[in-house]
């Protein structure tokens, strides 16, 4: 278990190092980092101070480590447009994004998993077919189209809901729905196939052939085993809580991280982009780590043999 | 030495990590193996699975790295694996695999694959290679019809014939056959062995014939070496080895293989656990299963010592006789 833990932690740390390296490399490739991070209008003193604090006169590998040091102290540069520390600006926006993505995640889980389980247990029924059609639609209809269609229906035609902004709770309904529906469809499809795979396992057929009540087989054997792969995709969704609403926030003029990122990219506000990149990566890596640990709890065999899956 | 193939003191060691907290274990898959094959001669190489016989076969071809020892082919050491010289040398030494379906590319026709060694080594004019492929097929008893077939359209025996034709395309001097018939139906086995025997007689190829099946080995081999847990325990002419096996392990193997005409002699099945390379017993590795083991067999490793002109045995009790 100790080995398993340290291995996973090592991998997580390695990924963070890679993302930071990526940010460092593209930053150096794209021009003078002092000018880029501080902005063209920064005062010469500020730029000199920045150079000194980030050690830009030093050899490249010294700079590389200095970059890590600066990041560790939370120094992610100033926004080119607002002149405020990028980290503060980004953190200010986190609650707004979470206000969309957390309820959406609940919808995905609350709708997607039961639908997938039901569809798998009633294979080829009308509901199964409906779930499959919706699941395919959830993948093929891009979120920007879905959000515009929802706006067209609920805001333009019916006039029930506002089409953009964040003044009231009602403003959150459409963006949350957009995120939730698409994710629920994907999760339903995934859960369904995970369930079907377990249902086809010999031990499940054996158990039901031996006369174990079907209910007990499903609750005791099928669900726990089918949930193991499902946890992975939920983990991915959790990791996406910060980054998953880029398009939807833009459509609904929602003042979260995603919209900030799009604006920052359009304005080439590199300090902000870099901050968001690192924040997203950190969230993703943390979520993956939690999933890995959950895996260990759900399926003790994985602690020893990462490839083993399936039957008892 | 006039030997075609001469291998001295071959050793191959795998490192294995045991359990979660990693006790590193060295596994001696092959240990101090000497063997030689003369032109036109067949050396049978017999052992149970896990005895290191296949590893040895791959080592003499340079397909597996040597951790100890040396392989000389036609008097020269093997070039480094994968080097151009090593690749060129493939025309001189070839291998026949256990599973012919796996050894063939299922997307290419038999004809194309039999022709492939000629393409790889650019042998002969392009236009004549198809012709040559067809004559190779007829050499192994396949007809031109089979050239257009895909591997899955042939029977197991036909596939192995195709593999043999491919191996013979460059007129090699040495053929290493690794369990060439054990994946085939028993009724087909004899045909393929007879084919190999006939080809050898006609072409004068040296052959290393690896098998767990003593009956098959006996039919084709001039000399036989018996290997147990990575070490040769007995070596001699096929005749001697069968008439008077000296090593207790060989005796058990001979007794266990029924022979036409001799009737069933007292079968004394091997007792104890089958050999496990990861858990090699001390001293003579065979002692836990040996009916005549003495105390010293547990402590000291018997060396392979000549008994008479052609025969070598590694057993404390035999050396004393």
């Amino acid at each position, binding site marked *: 278990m100790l080995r398993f833990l340290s291995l996973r932690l090592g991998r997580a740390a390695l990924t963070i190092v890679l993302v930071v390296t990526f940010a460092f490399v593209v930053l150096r490739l794209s021009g003078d980092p002092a000018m880029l991070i501080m902005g063209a209008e920064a005062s010469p003193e500020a730029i000199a101070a920045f150079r000194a604090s980030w050690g830009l006169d030093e050899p490249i590998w010294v700079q590389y480590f200095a970059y890590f040091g600066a990041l560790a102290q939370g120094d992610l540069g100033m926004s080119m447009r607002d002149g405020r520390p990028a980290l503060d600006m980004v953190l200010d926006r986190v609650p707004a994004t979470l206000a969309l993505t957390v309820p959406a995640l609940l919808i995905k889980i609350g709708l997607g998993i039961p639908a997938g389980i039901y569809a798998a247990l009633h294979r080829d029924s009308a509901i199964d077919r409906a779930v499959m059609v919706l699941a395919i639609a959830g993948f093929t209809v891009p979120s*920007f189209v879905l959000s515009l269609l929802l706006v067209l229906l609920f805001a333009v035609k019916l006039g029930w809901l506002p089409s953009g902004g964040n003044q009231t709770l009602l403003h959150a309904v459409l963006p949350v729905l957009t995120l939730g529906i698409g994710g629920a469809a994907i999760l339903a499809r995934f859960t369904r196939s995970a369930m079907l795979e377990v249902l086809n396992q010999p031990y499940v057929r054996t158990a039901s052939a031996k006369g174990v009540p079907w209910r007990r087989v499903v609750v005791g054997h099928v669900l726990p085993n089918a949930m193991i792969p499902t946890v992975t995709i939920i983990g991915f969704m959790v990791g996406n809580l910060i980054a998953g609403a880029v398009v939807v926030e833009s459509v609904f003029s929602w003042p979260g991280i995603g919209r900030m*990122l799009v604006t920052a990219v359009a304005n080439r506000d590199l300090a902000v982009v870099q901050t968001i*990149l690192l924040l997203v990566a950190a969230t993703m890596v943390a979520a993956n780590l939690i999933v890995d640990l959950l895996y260990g709890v759900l399926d003790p065999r994985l602690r020893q043999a990462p490839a083993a899956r399936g039957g008892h | 030495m006039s030997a075609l193939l001469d291998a001295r003191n071959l050793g191959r060691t795998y490192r294995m990590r045991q359990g979660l907290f990693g006790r590193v274990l060295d596994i001696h898959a092959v240990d101090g193996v000497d063997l030689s094959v003369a032109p036109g001669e067949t050396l049978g190489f017999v052992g149970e699975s896990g005895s290191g016989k296949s590893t040895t076969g791959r080592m003499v071809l340079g397909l597996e790295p040597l951790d100890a020892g040396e392989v000389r082919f036609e008097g020269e050491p093997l070039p480094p694996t994968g080097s151009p010289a090593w690749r060129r040398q493939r025309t001189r030494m070839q291998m026949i695999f256990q599973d012919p379906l796996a050894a063939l590319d299922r997307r290419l026709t038999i004809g194309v694959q039999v022709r492939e060694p000629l393409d790889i080594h650019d042998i002969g004019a392009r236009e004549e290679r198809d012709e040559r492929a067809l004559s190779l097929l007829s050499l192994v008893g396949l007809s031109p019809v089979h050239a257009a077939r895909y591997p899955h359209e042939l029977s197991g025996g036909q596939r192995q014939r195709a593999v043999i034709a491919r191996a013979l395309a460059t007129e090699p001097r040495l053929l290493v056959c690794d369990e060439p018939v054990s994946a085939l139906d028993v009724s087909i086995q004899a045909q393929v062995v007879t084919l190999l025997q006939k080809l050898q007689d006609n072409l004068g190829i040296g052959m290393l014939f690896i098998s767990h099946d003593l009956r098959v080995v006996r039919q084709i081999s001039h000399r036989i070496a018996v290997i147990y847990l990575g070490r040769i325990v007995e070596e001699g002419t096929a005749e001697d080895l069968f008439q008077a096996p000296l090593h207790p392990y060989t005796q058990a193997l001979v007794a266990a293989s029924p022979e036409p005409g001799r009737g069933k002699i007292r079968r004394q099945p091997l007792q104890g656990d089958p050999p496990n390379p990861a858990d090699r017993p001390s001293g003579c590795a065979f002692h836990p299963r040996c009916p005549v083991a003495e105390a010293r067999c547990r402590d000291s490793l018997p060396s392979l010592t000549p008994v008479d002109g052609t025969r070598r045995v590694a057993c404390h009790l035999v050396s004393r006789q």
Partner: protein
Amino acid sequence: MKDTPISPDQMSESTEASHPAGSFRPSRPPVPLAVWLAGGWVVAMVLVALLADILAPYGITALDLRNRLAPPGTPGHWLGTDELGRDVLSRLIVSIRVSLLIAFGAAVLSAVLGTTLGFLAAHFRGVVEQIVLMLADFQAALPFLILALAVLAFFGNSLVLFVCLMGLLGWERYARIARGLALSSSGQGYAAAVRQLGASPARVYFRHILPNTASTLIVSMTIVFPEIILMESGLSFLGLGVQPPQTSLGSMVGYGREYLTTAPWIMLAPAITIILTTLAVSLLGDWLRDRLDPTLR
């Protein structure tokens, strides 16, 4: 994400029974109607993309100021016009060409890149393999949209850079698959046999391993292709992908969004095209997967 466990021994090649010459072939189920329709749609889209210059009635920037915001069905403008009086049908046709071109170029790029890296990892093992797997982990750990936005922010936008960027989508999946397949076929079997015949590594990989893995890789391509279309149109929708005056399906939707209340057809025409195209390719991919490679999920 976890490694997708693709167990090589499940590949169909080793399970074929040794039947005598061609006596048994499983009868194949008829091709379903949906697959025919999907194939028809894809073919139509490719034709539209190829023949865009002939099919488009107007230039994409040609203004018809007397017919601004004309609804669909207007004679001469069957899908209507936008706020500047530009013909929606013509813009749609050219957008299909641009979007398909980007998606196709990117899909090929990603397949070539991923497969090559996967083969290199399998061939050299050791450090090379670790680096490739590390990069794949990195790619899988970051949402691609964020990665793409970061690159666009740092380097600005050009069509070439944009295609290359899209070509990074999904490479890690090809790399994992190609590595797995190469490892399983070189450990034993035909690849080892051919190597043992003296073939050069290039011959082993390109003449033997690649054709044997092609079906799996093609199926992966049909899975990645719709993702590329969606990613491209999403970025273009946000105004960060294809830049005006050039047009793509995504940027058309982005433009049409401003006229959602007055002229929804500007946005609907490209939106429906995106949906149908991704749907068609996904359906074809699912069908191909079932037909060619049941082990891939």
